[in-house]
């Protein structure tokens, strides 16, 4: 099934929103406006959007330290996210969480996570819940190529197979965990999902820089999992355009590596090319989206700057629902 024009425009809008959100963050962080540790998702947009465009708010996802893209793709409010990263009480988490801990259960976004590998078991629990509810909903754990070496990820995969839970393990292989190369740290030296396969799971592999490929692969994955056939894993080959964290000098990159990636592996460029060449969308329509998106991000930043700041009394709020 082809995507409708509206759906295509929506997908593009989502990808562009993630990109614009992050590039603006990159600038603001350089200016020193933003506190804390921030990891940019830039370059991987086609994965988050290609996965989440299949989901509704009752499907659940669990994210990572590099979570902005997943949050936006799943429907978190972009202004609320920006305010959160700015530390305002109007942020999605009231300024308590920041970049690494954005969540919005109302849209099925159960939480970003600062602990590598911690999300997968949580996603399996959410999948158990979905199974119990019997509405064909799924739960997705996003993980990196680094996270696939964490024991928790393996335990989660086995647990999902054993309980036949509708969990999907999406591995975004951007070939780096911090400053270390995938080929060094991942013992198999070829891929990640062969591990998932060894747990008895059905697996897929696809190019994560091509939205259409991600989207179509996920259609198959979701058909399998929603059909009650147990968990699945999929590995997307993708690229990270900025440093591991903001401030990373990226000395582990080869000469010209980043230039090549920007030229050849930019999922937004690739989307535009494919969509316009096939006459699905017109360049100026896409430019129109770009403008709207940039305006939204401007507004998000302006609102964030003006948003109320927390007070010392806020520290003790929301530890418990009720303690005594």
């Amino acid at each position, binding site marked *: 099934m082809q995507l409708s024009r509206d759906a295509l425009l929506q997908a593009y809008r989502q990808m562009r929103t993630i990109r614009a959100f992050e590039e603006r963050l990159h600038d603001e962080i350089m200016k020193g406006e933003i506190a804390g540790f921030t990891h940019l998702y830039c370059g991987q947009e086609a994965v988050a959007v290609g996965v989440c465009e299949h989901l509704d708010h009752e499907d659940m996802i669990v994210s990572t330290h590099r979570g902005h893209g997943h949050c936006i793709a799943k429907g978190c409010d972009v202004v609320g996210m920006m305010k959160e990263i700015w530390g305002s009480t109007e942020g999605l*988490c009231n300024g308590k*969480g920041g970049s690494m801990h954005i969540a919005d259960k109302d849209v099925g976004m159960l939480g970003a996570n600062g602990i590598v590998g911690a999300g997968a078991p*949580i996603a399996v629990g959410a999948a158990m819940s979905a199974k119990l509810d019997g509405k064909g909903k799924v739960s997705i754990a996003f993980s990196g190529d680094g996270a696939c070496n964490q024991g*928790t990820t393996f335990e989660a995969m086995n647990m999902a197979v*054993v309980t036949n839970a509708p969990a999907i393990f999406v591995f975004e292989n951007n070939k780096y965990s911090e400053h270390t190369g995938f080929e060094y740290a991942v013992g198999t030296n070829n891929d990640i999902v062969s591990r998932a396969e060894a747990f008895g799971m059905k697996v897929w592999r696809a190019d994560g820089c091509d939205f259409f490929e991600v989207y179509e692969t996920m259609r198959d994955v979701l058909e399998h999992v929603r059909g009650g056939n147990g968990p699945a894993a999929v590995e997307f080959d993708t690229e990270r355009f900025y440093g591991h964290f903001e401030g990373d000098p990226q000395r582990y990159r080869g000469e010209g590596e980043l230039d090549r990636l920007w030229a050849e592996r930019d999922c937004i460029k690739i989307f535009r090319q494919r969509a316009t060449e096939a006459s699905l969308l017109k360049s100026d329509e896409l430019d129109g989206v770009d403008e709207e998106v940039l305006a939204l991000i401007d507004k998000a930043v302006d609102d964030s700057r003006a948003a109320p700041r927390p007070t010392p009394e806020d520290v003790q709020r929301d530890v418990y629902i009720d303690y005594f």
Partner: protein
Amino acid sequence: MATMLYRDAVLQTLHAEMERDESVVVLGEDLVGGMGTAGGPEAIGGIWGTSVGLFDKFGKDRVIDTPISECAIVGAAGGLALAGKRPVAELMFADFIGVSLDQIWNQIGKFRYMFGGKSKCPAVIRMAYGAGFNAAAQHSQSVHQMLSGMPGLKVVMPSTPADVKGLFTQAIRDDDPVIFLEHKALYGVEGEVPDGEHLVPFGHARLSRAGEDVTIVATGMMVGMAEAAADSLAEEGIGCDVLDLRTTSPMDEEAILDSVEVTGRLVVVDEAPARCGLARDVSALVSELAFASLKAPPQAVTPPHTPIPFARELESAYLPSPDKIVAAVQKTLNWR
């Protein structure tokens, strides 16, 4: 009132709460037992016998037998809770928080706060703790001191079958994550348990002996020892308040301070060593907030700063005992 074992109070509460609320789900290793065997499911019903009959009644999606993967067990409980269920996970031995601590400490205990109060995580993590079976250094530990220091968690330590029912029911219905610590040596202890609905709110200590000379604070297995000490002291005309804290987070600080205001003397008994432990916490609390009432230095009766040894003689020497508590009471009475 029915009479039942501590262990059975756990089991019956699970049956009752799972019947009452279909969002209650249990998970853990060998919780069913016999999965994937010729003997078939329900071969054991939990190694403590605290899940017998659940599988037959509630089926495999609500009674989830898991592989040996504690991190995934607690993590799954977290995910179930975020998704709207009320999971009760069993860790078998409290010592296994070692392999699952991240999910307890950094995940379920922090979701609510990190997410600005917009999520809730009504998960209960049950585990059997404590020494007394010569199970050595990795199967005998008390962990309430570590877990009570983790903001976001509630920590419960029932010492009687009645409190198991009241506190466990509360734990399951509570909307915050709760660590429920069952003492291995109490599973076989019998006691009266109120019929029908019985809830014990958290943060309310139980006065199990009353006296005006010394305040003894204890939890779990230590409560019985404190009572034994108090009873033998009573014969000598020395009266002790024995306060069973029931929950260490929240802690009923008021009850402790009120009692010490009367007695002026404090003995804290704990099954974990003193360093950064509960005994020192309670002593300091009293020293900070009831300084003027104190007639003598607080006394702590705790094991030494060592792992838990195997041999019978060593484990007995390691643990607090009624005699050691009596000695501490006498020390505080004889001070100066």
